[in-house]
């Protein structure tokens, strides 16, 4: 505030009992030769007995002075703030004003009330109105007769569902969800290889319907998707079904209320739905990927709207996916997969863990085609009821995986082209000198636990060969 004249400034509101309590003190200061200006946030008639009372119902000065509590008394010297007293404390007020015996009949001190300029939802509004915007994105004006939702559709910004119009106020509020600077570069988004900043991610997060506290998850997911190993360019362009899927582990899943239980892979949870959706909007809007353009998916899958869930960790007999990948259970992570859709496994009869492994393997062998081998590893989502079979029998996750892998070795004669009257299959020359082939390459099934309490089902989420799963830590 370099243009501020020297003297004292008090910011008050009549609605605050401490402000009304100190009304005589303001009057007392006003009667001295101190230059006192009072800014009042609610009633411009308040306080009485002071010469200079300025209506600050717009809250412009309260915002610019960064007032959090009323009353606040500030001293300006040479155009700069030198001291401030917050609430009422006689000693502080005497120090700031340079006067003595202020409000001698009042209590020694009394805390103030919240400034109207920091009420919920107000700060961002004032920042847009009176602040120097820190946001760099191009401003797009919506015509006065144009509906904002329709404007987003018409500009090609949506995935086919309505988006929340990304106003500056909403984007500023979204950015409160991270400690990272809006202009921080996060990566380069294919297929057009455009620069992606925290601000652009926040804009798309607003559109997808995220709350600010989801933003760190989105940022980590974007970093994972843009990593070399994940291979997003190939994934978005392929004729195959796949799209990015996010599995979230760690305490943040509870903090932001993600769903790992009933209908975990389905609709209905805001965090699950909007985090996955943001990722797809970023690839569309920042990367420039559109279906029928670079996206050549023959059918695609519904998960390309959004596909994100949390692992059910708290009552699991096994370590989580993130722990298997070297993270502590107290660390929050995202793990990205190229996911092609959900296939159910229904086994209501097996009681013995080994039987259940055979059953899982039989279903897993059908991924992409029963006669294909060396496929990319799918995600196996084991339900609580199925995982209990293993837990009760004392099976570790490693033992479960090892057993499954054993049953996923397929005799080559079953795979050869022509066997069973099916041309699809491997050539005889490829099968030479091998007795069996693994269904999945590198024997690395990705195993997570999710789902509701009841249901003897599990799920296969098949993958796509051009992508490797990537896990990243979620940071604030």
């Amino acid at each position, binding site marked *: 505030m370099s243009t501020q004249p020297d003297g004292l400034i008090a910011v008050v509101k009549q609605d605050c009992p401490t402000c009304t309590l100190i009304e005589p003190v303001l009057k007392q200061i006003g009667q001295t030769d101190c230059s006192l200006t009072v800014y009042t946030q609610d009633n411009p008639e308040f306080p009485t007995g002071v010469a200079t009372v300025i209506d600050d119902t717009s809250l412009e000065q309260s915002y610019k002075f960064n007032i959090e509590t009323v009353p606040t008394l500030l001293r300006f010297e040479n155009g700069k703030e030198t001291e401030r007293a917050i609430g009422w404390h006689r000693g502080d007020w005497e120090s700031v004003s340079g006067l003595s015996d202020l409000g001698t009949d009042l209590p020694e001190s009394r805390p103030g009330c919240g400034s109207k300029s920091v009420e919920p939802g107000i700060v961002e509004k004032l920042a847009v109105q009176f602040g120097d915007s820190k*946001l760099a994105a191009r401003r797009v004006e*919506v015509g006065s007769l144009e509906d*904002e939702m329709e404007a987003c559709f018409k*500009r090609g910004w949506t995935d086919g569902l309505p988006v929340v*119009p990304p106003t*500056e*106020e909403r984007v500023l509020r979204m950015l409160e969800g991270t400690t990272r600077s809006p202009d921080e570069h996060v990566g380069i988004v294919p297929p057009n290889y455009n*620069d992606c900043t925290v601000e*652009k991610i926040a804009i798309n997060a607003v559109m997808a319907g995220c709350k600010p506290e989801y933003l760190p998850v989105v940022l980590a997911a974007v970093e994972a998707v843009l990593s070399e190993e994940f291979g997003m360019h190939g994934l978005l362009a392929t004729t195959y079904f796949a799209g990015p899927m996010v599995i979230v582990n760690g305490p943040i899943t509870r903090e932001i209320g993600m769903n790992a239980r009933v209908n975990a892979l389905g609709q209905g949870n805001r965090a699950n739905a909007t985090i996955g959706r943001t990722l797809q909007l970023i690839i569309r809007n920042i990367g420039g990927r559109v279906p029928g353009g670079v996206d050549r998916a023959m059918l695609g899958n519904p998960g390309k709207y959004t596909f994100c869930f949390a692992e059910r960790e708290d009552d699991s007999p096994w370590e989580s996916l993130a722990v298997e990948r070297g993270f502590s259970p107290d660390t929050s992570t995202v793990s990205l997969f190229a996911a092609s859709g959900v296939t159910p496994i229904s086994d209501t009869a097996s009681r013995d863990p080994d039987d259940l492994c055979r059953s899982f393997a039989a279903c897993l062998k059908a991924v992409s085609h029963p006669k294909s081998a060396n496929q990319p590893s799918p995600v196996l989502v084991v339900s609580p009821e199925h995982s209990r079979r293993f837990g009760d029998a004392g099976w570790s996750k490693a033992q479960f995986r090892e057993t499954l892998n054993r049953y996923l070795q397929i005799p080559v004669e079953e795979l050869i082209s022509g066997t069973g009257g099916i041309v699809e299959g491997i050539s005889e020359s490829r099968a030479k000198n091998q007795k069996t082939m693994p269904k999945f390459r590198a024997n690395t099934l990705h195993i997570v636990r999710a789902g509701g309490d009841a249901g003897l089902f599990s799920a296969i989420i098949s993958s796509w060969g051009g992508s490797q799963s990537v896990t990243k830590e979620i940071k604030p």
Partner: protein
Amino acid sequence: MSETRILLDPTSEQKPAQRERVTRPNSLEGLTIGLLDISKNRGNVFLDRVESHLTDRGLKVNRYIKPTFTRPAPVELQQQIATECDVVVEGLAD
């Protein structure tokens, strides 16, 4: 929501902020051309002439009429034209 008239661009800003026109076809060969009479006086005369030029070149033409030029075309008519035609010519002036 009168205060939310300015939106922040979610894209990489490689394209103009205005809505883009649909790309014009390089040739009318093999396309169906809709001629829309908006019911303005003598619009039909203009479109008759356009039609004869196009059909002389062996092109396929469909004719449509809007009930009145004072209002937007009914949704059914918009959808009919969109499903039946590749390009549209409207006769606007009288």
